[in-house]
């Protein structure tokens, strides 16, 4: 399984999955913070931006993610809501500073790769005592979700390609533990076709040799200790909290919330009702564990397509089902 949506995208774009032998099966993991963002968060974002005084800033990826009634932020924008696509959270500070009459809300999603950027925005806003900026927190932590996935006895994943850029920030520690605990090889992998093949090869070699270690196949970017400054920043601004991953249910300590003294910048308290495996029609949990192929799902290609997705893996182009739909259907 490759964890990160960016890796899935690269695999498909370059046709690597079809280049590999049939004996190697790639399961596209839940590695897209976009498609694991719970629909309730999207509903909250939509409700907020419909207020005339609110400016919602978001990464472009989030605009097509459906809320629980199928509507999305892109639809809101075309109806006149002030939804702004930004590249960096630091741009959100500028918007809030420049437009004091607007209530600026930032939809803060991402893995640990993105957490430092959100953290900087939070510290800057706090220092400047901005009163018109809030964050709708939806950050997730990868290791706890992998822990749950790999811990499920029905999970068929034999090896893991860890998201190289998450590891660039977090370093090796969490993944060493995961490899040892679940006795599966984990290889920290990059995003180019060569880097992906290198990661896959390393994983296969370990499996053939019966090993289950953590290896680094992305040495140009990943250091053992990660980025200490970034990690310190994360620890200062955030604390782990239970979070719903769309399709997987509640992941214990699977998310981040703002810790004091920054918590006043968060829009809502962090409590969410956990929904096991998303809505009843979408068996995404099984897909993500490798128990069901996208094509085997009764809704696949019919009630559920990229244009009107029912669940997480069909939402973004990197989701397992969306990918399958485009390239194998």
């Amino acid at each position, binding site marked *: 399984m490759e964890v990160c*949506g*960016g890796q899935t995208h690269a695999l*498909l*774009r*370059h*046709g*690597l999955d*079809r*280049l590999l032998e049939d004996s190697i099966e790639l399961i596209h993991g839940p590695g*897209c*913070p*976009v498609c694991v963002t719970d629909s309730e968060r999207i509903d909250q974002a939509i409700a907020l931006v419909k207020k005339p005084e609110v400016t919602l800033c978001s*990464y*472009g*990826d989030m*605009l*097509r993610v459906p809320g629980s009634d199928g509507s999305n932020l*892109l639809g809101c924008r075309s109806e006149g809501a002030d939804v*702004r*696509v*930004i*590249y*960096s959270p630091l*741009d959100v500070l500028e918007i809030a500073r420049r437009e004091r009459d607007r209530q600026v809300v930032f939809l803060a999603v*991402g893995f640990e790769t*993105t957490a430092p950027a959100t953290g900087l925005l939070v510290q800057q806003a706090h220092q400047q005592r901005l009163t018109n900026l809030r964050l709708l927190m939806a950050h997730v932590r990868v290791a706890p979700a992998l822990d749950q996935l790999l811990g499920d006895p029905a999970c068929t994943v034999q090896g893991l390609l860890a998201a190289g850029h998450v590891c660039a920030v977090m370093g090796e520690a969490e993944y060493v533990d995961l490899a040892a605990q679940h006795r599966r090889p984990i290889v920290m992998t990059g995003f180019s*076709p060569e880097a992906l093949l290198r990661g896959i090869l390393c994983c296969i070699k370990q499996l053939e040799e019966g090993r289950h270690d953590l290896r680094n196949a992305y040495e140009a970017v990943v250091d053992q200790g990660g980025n200490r400054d970034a990690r310190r920043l994360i620890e200062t601004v955030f604390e782990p909290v239970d979070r719903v991953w769309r399709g997987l249910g509640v992941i214990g300590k699977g998310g981040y919330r703002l810790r004091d003294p920054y918590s006043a910048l968060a829009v809502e308290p962090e409590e969410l009702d956990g929904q096991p495996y998303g809505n009843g029609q979408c068996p995404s949990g099984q897909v993500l564990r490798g128990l069901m192929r996208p094509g085997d799902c009764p809704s696949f290609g019919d009630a559920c397509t*990229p*244009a009107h997705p029912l669940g997480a893996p069909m939402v*973004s182009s*990197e989701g397992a089902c969306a990918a399958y739909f*485009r*390239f194998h259907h």
Partner: protein
Amino acid sequence: MGHGGGGRLMRELITELVVPKLGHQKNVLHDAALLYTPGPQLAFSTDSYVVRPLFFPGGDIGRLAVYGSVNDLAMAGARPLALSLSLIIEEGLEVDCLARVIDSVGEACRGIGVEVITGDTKVVERGKGDGLFINSTAIGVVEHPLNISPSAIRPGDAVIVSGDLGRHGLAVLSARAELGLRSPIESDLACLLEPVMELLAAGVELHCLRDLTRGGLASASDEIARSGQCTLQLEQQRIPVHPSVNAACEVLGLDPIAMANEGRMLVICPAEQVGLALTVLRRYQPEAARVGKVGERWADGSSLDVRYPVSLISELGVNCPVVLAEGEQIPRIC
């Protein structure tokens, strides 16, 4: 608002700003302009221009309105005879801004040797327009015997692009400032009339021409494949893209082959004439290149996967379908 009301203000706007800048064959303001047509086959095209911002590196909406419509005619191998120009102006647009746009229209027309001979002006309320919308319609004449259209493409034909891709998309992105990218790259906005006329004069048997606009090479090739009922195979490594365009696309998660262009075209011609075609095209854009070929024709009941009639051979040699984005490409971080 008064300027659109049909009264004195409107007459002044037209006679004192628009007409002097565009010149006029007879300077008679009547409802219809008259044309004498030299040939038996006319070409006719219309397009509306809604670009934001109105002025971007390498161009503006005025020049775009002229080149865009003349390019449409050129894609049929037609020479333009005359243009119409309709303006929908948002209340509050500065007169100076409008003047600069009209100046640009005039300059573009003079460069091509064509005139705007009829037009219209309307003003809409503040908030109901993006500053300025322009519609231009072009009439031209076909003076060659070829049928230049998707239906003329044949299996084995060469697929050529007339230059490097995506500059217009990047220029507009960086002019919009919201994403904070600053780039020296200007739009590739250009008139394609001359290269097309030269291709015809050189004896290239043009099967199909298509100017690349929104949606870039991906959209244009998809449309041609579907209309021409043939698959198209493109080769990633042959597609010319400026390093800055590539870099901006990497940073924002966009696909260079789906970026907008306004001065590039697809040329589909017999494989034997590639050298001749490229010799002509490279005098205008040195990066003109053959990027692929026309594949098989599909018939009803064929087993070809015609959901995605265009495929891209990746750097690793794997054939990947070209899937069009749902709508406009949106930057991503994932």
